[in-house]
């Protein structure tokens, strides 16, 4: 029996609220299909199932808030035969039902062919076996969404201490770190969002040694090209220049793949696919950076359409779980605000973030002459544990080169 657990939809997520099930017990489900809707501190997310099979039973009711890793549903995989699965009574029923008294019942004959009851154990909670844990460690574990199951205690009398929780957190691949954030009284979505951002950004600044590079790029050719292309397109298909920046960054990453990586288990793991996370600011504050899958492979028209869709769904709180977890790098742009440049804070476990300022008219020397050009500043914040300025510079130079030939971007 496969377990479907509350997924971690980002390094800053400790728990999630199950909003609704999208399937029923008995339904067949395929990998990639939406099984549930989950609300995190940042967004409402359609969670995709990663198992092929038939839904056996749900263990969590809609409306419940549970830590990451909590088993939400049991799924019978294709390999398991239906007949071998006697449905165990619900644990709640076992507790409330009184044993039927007296009436002697014949013990059922044990048939050697009868299938052994499948060992399905409900989730073990702390209440079932007395756990020695310090209050601070318990609080940390809850904040980090860590299960206490099997955690070794090194505190006084073998109690689990904060040190043990930190060790468990760092050994767990999701590595939510030891971000400790002060409790905030009001629990509004806005407060939760700020808290989530506070946790991930504090962790980033604490753990990641950032280096910063910037490159002024003559963006005139690209902007002119966008204008002329848009002239040929119906309004609903027109592009914004940000899409060029996303695509150019993705193509440049093919040349400098070291920056398309995630920090996992204390080392950098280079990723095959380039999923650029597009930073989207939300109304009422906060931001998210969901993935544009395979950014380098999509043409501009498709990217524009997907980007528009992502912004719309992101702001409506309707993102898919894979979009929340897949980004391999983030691109952030404050172009519409008019700042020259911005230096981003890396979103863990990513190892780099690319930032673009607004295109500004600048005197620019070209072929020995001063001309008025529209210039955009690209920046890179890189994880110095993973790369050096050398690779970072190669990426920015590649972005510059790619943007000079916008017609090739399609």
């Amino acid at each position, binding site marked *: 029996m496969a377990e479907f657990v509350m997924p971690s939809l980002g390094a800053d997520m400790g728990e999630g609220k199950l909003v609704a099930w999208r399937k029923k017990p008995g339904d067949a489900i395929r990998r990639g299909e939406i099984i549930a809707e989950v609300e995190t501190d940042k967004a409402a997310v359609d969670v995709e199932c990663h198992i092929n099979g038939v839904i056996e039973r749900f263990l969590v009711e809609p409306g419940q808030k549970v830590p990451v890793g909590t088993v939400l549903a049991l799924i019978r995989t294709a390999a398991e035969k239906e007949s071998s699965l006697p449905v165990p009574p619900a644990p709640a029923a076992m507790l409330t039902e009184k044993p039927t008294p007296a009436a002697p019942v014949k013990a059922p004959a044990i048939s050697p062919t009868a299938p052994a009851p499948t060992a399905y154990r409900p989730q073990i909670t702390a209440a079932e076996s007395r756990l020695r844990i*310090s209050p601070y460690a318990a609080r940390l574990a809850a904040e980090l969404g860590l299960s206490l199951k099997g955690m070794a205690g090194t505190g006084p009398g073998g109690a689990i201490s904060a040190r043990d929780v930190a060790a468990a957190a760092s050994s767990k691949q999701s590595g939510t770190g030891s971000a400790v954030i002060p409790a905030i009284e009001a629990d509004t979505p806005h407060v939760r969002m700020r808290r989530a951002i506070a946790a991930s950004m504090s962790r980033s600044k604490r753990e990641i040694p950032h280096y910063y590079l910037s490159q002024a790029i003559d963006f005139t050719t690209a902007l002119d090209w966008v204008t002329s292309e848009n002239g040929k397109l119906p309004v609903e298909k027109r592009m914004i220049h940000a899409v060029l920046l996303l695509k150019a960054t993705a193509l440049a990453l093919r040349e400098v793949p070291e920056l398309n990586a995630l920090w996992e288990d204390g080392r950098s793991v280079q990723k095959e696919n380039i999923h650029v996370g597009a930073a989207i600011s939300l109304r009422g504050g906060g931001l998210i950076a969901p993935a544009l899958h395979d950014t380098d492979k999509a043409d501009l028209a498709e990217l524009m359409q997907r980007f528009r869709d992502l912004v719309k769904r992101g702001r409506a709180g309707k993102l898919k779980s894979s979009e929340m977890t897949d980004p391999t790098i983030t691109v952030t742009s404050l172009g519409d605000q008019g700042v020259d440049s911005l230096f981003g804070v890396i979103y863990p476990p990513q190892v780099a973030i690319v930032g673009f300022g607004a295109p500004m008219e600048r005197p620019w020397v070209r072929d020995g002459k001063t001309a008025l050009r529209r210039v955009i500043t690209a920046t890179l914040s890189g994880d110095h544990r993973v790369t050096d300025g050398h690779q970072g510079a190669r990426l920015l130079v590649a972005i510059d080169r790619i943007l000079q030939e916008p017609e090739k971007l399609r």
Partner: protein
Amino acid sequence: MKMTYREAVREGLRHVLKSDPRVFLMGEDVGRYGGAFAVSKGLLAEFGPDRIRDTPLSESTFTGAGIGAAIGGMRPIVEIMTVNFSMLALDQIVNSAAALRHMSGGQISVPLVVRMATGGGRQLAAQHSHSLEGWYAHVPGIKVLAPATPNDARGMLVAAIEDPDPVFIFEHATLYPVEGEVDDPFQPVDISRSTIRRAGTDVSIFAYGGSLGKALQASDDLTTAGISAEVVDIRVLRPLDEATILESVSRTHRVVVVDEMWRTGSFAGEISALIMEKAFYDLDAPVVRVCSAEVPMPYAKHMEAAALPQTANIVAAAQEILGRHG
């Protein structure tokens, strides 16, 4: 500038005697003998018998006279030789000094300062060696100070004189010959706040008065074992500066409280309970108290040492709650 704790108290007395003609000092042997601990030596010659007054062996009477003088507009400083003898004046202190402002609806204030020696470690046995400041810290209406350094001893005395309510200053008797740096020029010390004497990250050691030096020594010893111990000087027992204590706990998550009182009903118990009430979810290990053994203080040197909290006990307690044994 360096001076001994004894000199610092004397400097504080001299400062307030000079700056306010309403101030006078009274107590057993404070005049001709120069004080049981030689604190007021020379003051009689300098300020005369009107302002440095010897009293009979009658703690209740001269403490009560101090209260009356304070109500009458003077600024008396009453010296009680040791805290053990102050039991005789307890009625005056608890029923009069502490209560009068409240009972008079704010019409009567008692600007009295009472100084007394406290603590063991000098082979003076049970009737001269106990630490009972926590009893006084129980009483609302008074302030209770426990300076551990010459600078605090001098600066707190001056702040106490400026306070409109009764202030009790407990001077650990082993501290008088201890030398320390004092502010030059002189400044009063805030008598509402504790202070962090050494910053650390692994464990907070709360101590005051005669135990502060042992806590700092323990912190040194723990450093060599790779443990970073924060040392917080409680120094104001009432009103207790809860914020400094709770902030320290929120940083280190582990607590050792050192207190020369007997463990049962000790002031360390109050600090421990405060942490339990307000910082429970910051605790990574039980709070440990290092207090005196529950016996009348022995005379024999080795037995007295065994009865009092010592550096080694503090180190062991810290190692215990850190799960590391030295």
